[in-house]
């Protein structure tokens, strides 16, 4: 019998990140943006990474991007993912800004369709009443 797997880790939503996760639960992708210089910050930050302004808000983004890079994870290192290995992690560069990165997960069955530079779009994976994970897959 395989050992029972603990659930996958979930975000500990905090004041800084709540707007992101609340939007995701509505199946909308929002990213923190600076109201002074319009720079996008992800993960959300208390001050803008480009101009250090504290005037930050969340705005909807297209949900489109490209695979900047990826890896196939083989180590059962993360509780909840032991039975998923091997699996893909993608680093997505959103189209709104160079090096505006998000992490995503795909099962290994998707590997043939994943290359650096390939176009992806967001989809939403509901987990529980509070949490829905934005994920990306090839267009």
């Amino acid at each position: 019998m395989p050992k029972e797997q603990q659930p996958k880790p979930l975000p500990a939503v905090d004041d800084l990140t709540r707007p992101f996760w609340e939007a995701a639960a509505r199946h909308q992708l929002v990213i923190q943006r600076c109201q002074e210089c319009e720079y996008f910050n992800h993960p959300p930050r208390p001050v803008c990474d480009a101009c250090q302004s504290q005037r930050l808000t969340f705005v909807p983004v297209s949900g489109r991007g490209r695979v900047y890079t990826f890896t196939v994870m083989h180590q059962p290192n993360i509780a909840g993912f032991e039975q998923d290995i091997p699996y893909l992690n993608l680093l997505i560069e959103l189209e709104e800004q160079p090096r505006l990165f998000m992490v995503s997960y795909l099962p290994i069955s998707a590997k043939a369709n994943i290359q650096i530079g390939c176009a992806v779009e967001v989809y939403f994976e509901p987990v529980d009443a509070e949490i829905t994970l934005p994920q990306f897959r090839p267009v």
Partner: protein
Amino acid sequence: MWTGKGKTAIVGIGYSELTRHSQKPLGLLAIDACRAALSDAGLQSEQVDGLATYPELPALGAGSRDGEDIVSVLYMINHLPLAPDIRWYAQIEAGMIASPVIESVHALIAGACNSVLVWRALHQPRGRYGAWSNTRAAGESQFMAPYGCTSIFQWHAMQWQRYMHTYGATREHLATFVVNSRRNANLNPRAFFSTTPMSHEDYLASRWIAEPLCLFDCDIPVEGCVALVLTTTERARDLRHPPAYVAGYGQNTSRRRTLFHYALDDYMACGASLAQKLWSSSGLGPHDMDAAELYDGFSPSTLYWLEAAGFCQRGEAYAFIQDGRITLEGELPVNTFGGSLSEGRLHGMGHIAEAVFQVTGRAEQRQIPGAAAVCAIDGSPMLRGSGLVLTKEA
């Protein structure tokens, strides 16, 4: 050029045993290393009036018991018969392992103390290295853990994938470096893998950790401690071995140091922020180095350092390391002791120790003839890093 150049020196080195899991508590391993370093220098512990360490925990989920998981300055004060009046100490967790050495240099030049003991003790907790077991992910990890992407090697793997794609590097190219490191470790009796050879084929056959990185691209976690003794150049001349003079140093001072900025551009910007200070303080450059000891927690990091520190152009390191150029007999010997990959994960202390051995003519079978200047850089170019240039002459 830095006014402190050549005013201080490393005069003693000590290693504890290096094993996967020691029967001894970490505190006693640290005492072993410190006593060995003092004996190497020809100093009594009562002559030490300065202490510095980098006590950071070695892995996610490790405890923080002093003398078990970490070894603090206070632990050493309580467990070694030091000078009755400790005049200076520092416990530093910014930068990397050269950072407490750099602060010791400052203290010696300022006249705050006469002799400093610096150590780095690494605990290797039982269980899988760097495992994640929390059910809730706080801070930035809330955008990584729910996707199964919390391990530092996954981020290294993703950037190496990007590097391969951008510049045309392959696993075969990286194999040259990893196998060369093992060959050097086979000449280093302290190395964890001192008696275990590795062929090109062994490397290519090793299991994946996170593609495109395999097991042998990851350093070997060990339990143990390395200690160094520093003093002023004036005092150094009367001691047992020739001194390794501190010619210059640099620390990573770049911004944008979070996992989410782990892109190659950021690696290079961070690495360059360190290297620029390393070369300007010492008045030396990459072409003056007789060997380079470059951090290799994951094998691609050494290639990034070769580029960021100016040993070759950006995107060229994978080609630069071929054709014997980085072997002990080559134009630029790299990680002459085997690196963290093959000596053991000592967070860069092994790199500093080897630079000392090389410039003082004490590297035995690994000695680069006439080595006069060697750099040791620790940290992967992102997040952290610190480095030293050590020279044979003051």
